């Protein structure tokens, strides 16, 4: 069982407790800086910030229900080279799982990062979050949100959390070095931090936090939360499957798409510098457009829309961690996350692979066995 420790919470301010915890982490010579979500200008958005001076941790707020973008790509930039000491990163579970996938693609470097996962109670879309903190003190509202969510409220503070979070069955990050537990605890009394890797244990022992008994309520609450979210997820899968049951339905589903490729930019596991759809491969000649138009009498412009989404599915559906940033980034509110999570569930199940689970299991298309999938070739292997 992972070694655990307790973070005391004084005068019902878990965020302050976390800030002091992160300050202790920053003191450790092992860590050069801490990447954590921080409120930058009073009621403005909350952005991941690389903090090196412990004093600056005062506005850091890991409990905020905000998810501006998937920080995995940022962590890649912070770890992709020779480094003496490490960067600690306070990330949501889907960000950590996305980072694990990027490590497998040689983009990020696990040795240079110290992953601190926080139980994720869901976040609002970017615009919803701005309204939520418009006039209240952001940190107080975060704690309020946390308490309401822990109490099981559907849409704490009146606004519903993002669909991706509602359908997410990974509220706690098991792959991180340290993970801070909230679910099933009284966050005003104490928080539990548990270490899952050797580095995590080393750091935890150096911090010298008091021990804590495993709270049975945590496991029960966690299971219940996961059950609720899985139910929501499966309902979402059915709806999406129904909505895209034929190519025509898929075309209608994606009819709003204008090929801005923003969903690709936001997607943490789409690691190409330039997507093939923006390279010269897809800038066609006038006679080609005319030929295509000639085939069916008309031609929607821009072309290669459904083709783009299907190809993106082929490229990264096995690596999708369901963080929902694609829907978040789509200017025309196309439910891209629902489509990609539904298909990803199918393809990952087919190869018996779970994205972001561990750096040891190889991505499905990079390995093969001599005798497998004989049903693909009609029973003949």
């Amino acid at each position, binding site marked *: 069982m992972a070694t655990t420790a307790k973070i005391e919470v004084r005068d019902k301010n878990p965020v302050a407790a976390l800030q002091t915890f992160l300050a202790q982490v920053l003191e450790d010579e092992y860590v050069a800086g801490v990447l954590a979500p921080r409120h930058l200008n009073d009621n403005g958005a909350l952005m991941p910030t690389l903090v090196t001076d412990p004093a600056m941790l005062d506005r850091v707020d890991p409990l905020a229900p905000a998810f501006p973008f998937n920080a995995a790509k940022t962590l890649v930039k912070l770890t992709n080279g020779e480094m003496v000491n490490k960067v600690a990163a306070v990330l949501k579970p889907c960000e950590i799982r996305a980072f694990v996938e990027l490590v497998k693609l040689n983009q990020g470097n696990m040795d240079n990062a110290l992953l601190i996962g926080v139980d994720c109670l869901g976040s609002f879309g970017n615009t919803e979050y701005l309204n939520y903190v418009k006039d209240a003190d952001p940190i107080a509202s975060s704690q309020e949100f946390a308490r309401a969510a822990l109490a099981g409220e559907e849409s704490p503070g009146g606004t519903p959390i993002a669909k991706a979070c509602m359908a997410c069955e990974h509220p706690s990050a098991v792959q991180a070095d340290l993970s801070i537990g909230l679910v099933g605890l009284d966050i005003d009394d104490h928080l539990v931090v548990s270490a899952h890797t050797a580095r995590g244990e080393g750091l935890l022992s150096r911090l010298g936090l008091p021990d804590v008994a495993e709270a049975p309520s945590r496991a029960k609450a966690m299971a219940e939360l996961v059950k609720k979210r899985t139910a929501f997820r499966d309902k979402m899968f059915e709806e999406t499957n129904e909505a895209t049951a034929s190519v025509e339905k898929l075309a209608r589903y994606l009819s709003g798409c204008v090929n801005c490729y923003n969903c690709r930019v936001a997607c943490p596991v789409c690691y190409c*510098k*330039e997507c093939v759809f923006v*390279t010269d491969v897809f800038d066609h*000649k006038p006679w080609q457009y005319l030929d295509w138009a000639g085939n069916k009498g008309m031609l929607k412009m821009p072309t290669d829309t459904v083709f783009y989404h299907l190809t993106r599915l082929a490229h990264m559906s096995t690596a999708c961690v369901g963080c929902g940033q694609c829907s978040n980034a789509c200017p025309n509110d196309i439910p891209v996350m629902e489509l990609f999570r539904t298909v990803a569930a199918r393809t990952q199940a087919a190869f018996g692979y779970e994205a972001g689970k561990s750096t040891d299991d190889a991505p499905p298309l990079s390995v093969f066995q001599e005798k497998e999938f004989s049903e693909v070739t009609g029973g003949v292997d």
Partner: protein
Amino acid sequence: MKKTYGALVVGAGVGGIRAALDLAETGQSVALIDKKPNIGGILTQLDYQFPNDHCGMCKMLPLTERDGSSQFCMRKGLFHRNIDIMLSTEVTALEGEPGKFMVTLRKRSAFVDPNKCIGCGKCSEVCPVKVKSDFNAGLTKRSAIYLPVPHNIPNHYVVDLDNCLRCWQCYNACPTGAIDFKFEERQGFHILVADSDPKTFEDMKDWLQDQNFPLRHVFDGDAAVDALADQSRQVRILFLDMGLPGSDPEKVLRRGLELNPDLHVVLMAQPDQEQAARELAGQGAKDVLLKPFEPKRFVPWLDKLYMRMMSDETLDLDVGAVILAGGFECYDPGEVGDVLGYGREPAVVTSVEFERMCSGTGPSNAKLIRPGDNKPIKKIAWLQCVGSRDLKKKADYCSSVCCMISIKEALLAKKLTKGEAETTIFYMDMRTFGKEYERYRQNAEANDGVKFVNARIHSVVPADQTSGSKDIKVLYLDEAGRLQEEVFDLLVLAVGARPPVGTKELAEALGIETNEWGYCKTRYFTPSRTSAYGIFAAGSYNGPKDIAETLIQSGAAALEASRIITIYAPLTERTPEPQPEYRNVSRETPKILIALCTSCPILEQTVDMDSLVARLGGLASVAQVAKIGSACTKPGWEEIEALADKHSPNRILIGACQPYAYIPKLRELGQTIGLNPALMDVVDIFTPTAARQGEDKGAVEREVFSALSMASVRLLGADPTPLPPATQVTRKALVVGGGLAGMTAAMGIADHGYAVSLVEEQETLGGQAMNIRYTLNDEDPVKFMEDLIDSVQKHPNITVYKDARVVLSSGRAGRFTSVIATDQGAVSFDHGATVLATGGREANVYDYGFRVHKCVMTQRELEDQLASGALDTSALSGVAMIQCWRSRDEGRSYCSRVCCGQALKNLLMLKKRNPELPVYVFYRDIMTYGFAETYYTQARKAGAVFIRYDLKDKPKVEFEDKVPVITARDPILQREIQVRPSLLVLSGGIEPNEVSDLQEMFGVEVNADGFFQEAEYKWRPVDFLKQRLFMCGLARAPGNMSETIASAKAAAQRAVRILSEMRLTSGSVIAEVRHSLCSLCGKCISVCPYGARSLDLEQDMILVDELLCQGCGACAAVCPNSASLLRGFRDQQVLSVIDAALNGLNYGRARAAEPETATQTEGGES
């Protein structure tokens, strides 16, 4: 006129092809001839080969300079710029000495013009003749004009003159007039009839009038002589009657031959004059015909005689060396009245016939049904050693391959019947001595349920006469001595090997000796040299071999030949032929020239050419669409060149038939007009039209248009940028291991003038071979090794490093640098190729306690003591030998192949010294393959007792007061027997030396048993998968000295192939990386099967080693944003080909307007 070649390879089977390719790749020009009308030999009839049940012949093709040779399935055919293939050609005479042989060849014409024949098959449909097809081993019939091998190209038909009835129906049926019976040339072919009786002349005149031969008649000898003297109308055939008045026939004959030496004289004789005619024939007359003639026989006979005289051409070649690769024929069990019912029972077939029954191109389309009553076959038996290991059939040798062929065929039968077939193999010794063969047999027995029965079927009778069913009952004696009967659907006779037909005549023509079984005789230590210097034996010519051995033997023969050529006829330093400079067209707007070959009338009839030309004109960037005569002839080709000069297109697309045959022509065209051949393509527009004469023109036109538009759109996207510059090659070689193999390889390379460093771990050279004191065929190994070591140390090009190890090796193909740690410090050495010959040692398999007893030793120790005389054989009371001791068992499931030979060698030496000495040999399968079988018979005759055991009850060894007591069960007597010899000799087999450090340094793998893992079992036996690295000797696989020498020479030849190139160029289809798009995810590195891609850490770039890259495109498919692409198959090209394929297909709405209005010719911008 005389042509000169570096080497002549006789026989274009697999061995011949390998030898020819090996030589051609080192730059020598090779003439490859075969008496059959097709290449491939027996391999054309086999679809799968053991031990991995795959075909894979194409892996023999060159890996570098790929554009210089064919890059498609070898079943279709082969071309290489340095190889001229001549089919239906045989050697008639040879003179001269090595380096300067004058060879005369006789080339039989196929009577079909390869350029004109489009393989439509109409001629063979009308031909009345039906004879057994030797391609299908007699199971199906073919006509006299036939396709020798259905899938070979150039795919033209061949006339088999012997069976042809001269009915001329094929001549009339041929749409393109490809069949050439030389009808016009007959006017000049004068025939003189010298006979006093005018009736013969009259008869001949009216019989032959439609053959349009000019006939003349003279009545007596003098008139005949005058007619012969008349040079203006030169007589080619003289019918000379024995009873000719005037000067007697003998004088006329002599005078006629003086006038014209190749005058064909036919003596006409009454029955009583036949005797005199026969004598006269001795002095130069070619035939004797008995009067009276009847027309039905005479006319076809004369026609055939004419065809032979007109079509056979003799060629004279100057060659440096000759390689004989005749292969072997399969024994025909039907020739002598055999009791096994072959020929009588349709259910008894030979292994080749069974192979054809299983093949897709065979008589039953790969459905296992019995010839005769087509009953599906479920229960099959194989009988081994039919026609081999049989003194009665004067074949006391083992054909080495039939055991493995039977196991493979059993597995193939199970595969084809989805596992329902029951297979049983009746054998005496299951000889699975090759690499991975024992494991193949164990799998077959354990997993696939192939039954092995140690018995010899002695007779085959119909299962039951009454029901007329064709099943057969097989009678044999089982191990326990009970007579068994079993009913089978099919009995396959594993027929042995015989020297190829005509070996005796060829041997006399070339003056080489043959051994007692009729195979070409080669010596033990020089396995590829025949008795005549400069003539070498490749493949199975000096004895039956499996494919891997055949290729090794061919590689060795190629090395010897190329050594002769470099020594006796030194090539001027082979200036690399000028790198053709192609016009750089990357700046120009793409302009495509489409040339349609209209020579075959079928195209005209089935397609409306004008609408096709118009539609093609509408395609993007098509500058010119032209119709040309026949693309397959010289004039047609000049038309294309003229068009190219006129329009100077930067893309050329040719619509013709059989695109494969044009690839070499495209290269020539590219050189003449200076356009990169990668920008040209040939499309098959004949096949779509052939089948559908009747259908509506629109459908066929759409097919042809779609084929051409797909190709033109692909050419449009072709990347005109020139290939990366060729890499320089360091023309030196590194040989690791100074044993017999290493030294032979080093000598082979050094004799070609390249520097070699030989690194040996021990203090002395020689390795394992120094322990061999004498050989089975009484050669002298000790003297041979001394001479070899002496010549290696004295060789100017070889630097020997003793007590030295390679510690580091790095670099790219063609330019490696290795560091060798010697006792005088480290030496760095640049080299272009590496040969690993780290050797092996006798397996030290000792159970506890054996080592203690003096009376127990290994075969090697016994050989030492026998040779040094330390062992006094008269003092011995008996010797027992146990074979396969701790080998061919779970721990080491491979056969070390040499221990049986070594045991027999020692046994015969013991018996020679003390004939009365009882010797008992406990064995599982005696592996005396090839000609070693005679020594097995000699050992038995000498009185050695051979006792078979199997894994279930091995002989138990105990010791009673220092004397070994061996208890075992004699299978024949079904009783325990006990032997108390004074000496126990164990055969433990061979283990490879420790190579883990080399493995890691050179990046090579070893197989499950620790021997090096070669690139391909059969087709690249001495290459590593990682290019420029070769292996030989015991490190590759166990083998006797002769096999080690052969594999060393083959490895040396492969190394010379690399060092002989001043610069190595890759093929035009290779991978490329667009670094701006690449995010270094490394997926393409792990997916590359050839390890041709590497991550350069300093510049953060993925590098492609263009020599290792074979153009498979796996990297292009795995890269999401096509940063990695394959030249010739870029994404734009393939996507636009898909569009063109689906463009204009019968979409719901017919296409409204033809695309004239679409952008015409010059409009498309680049």
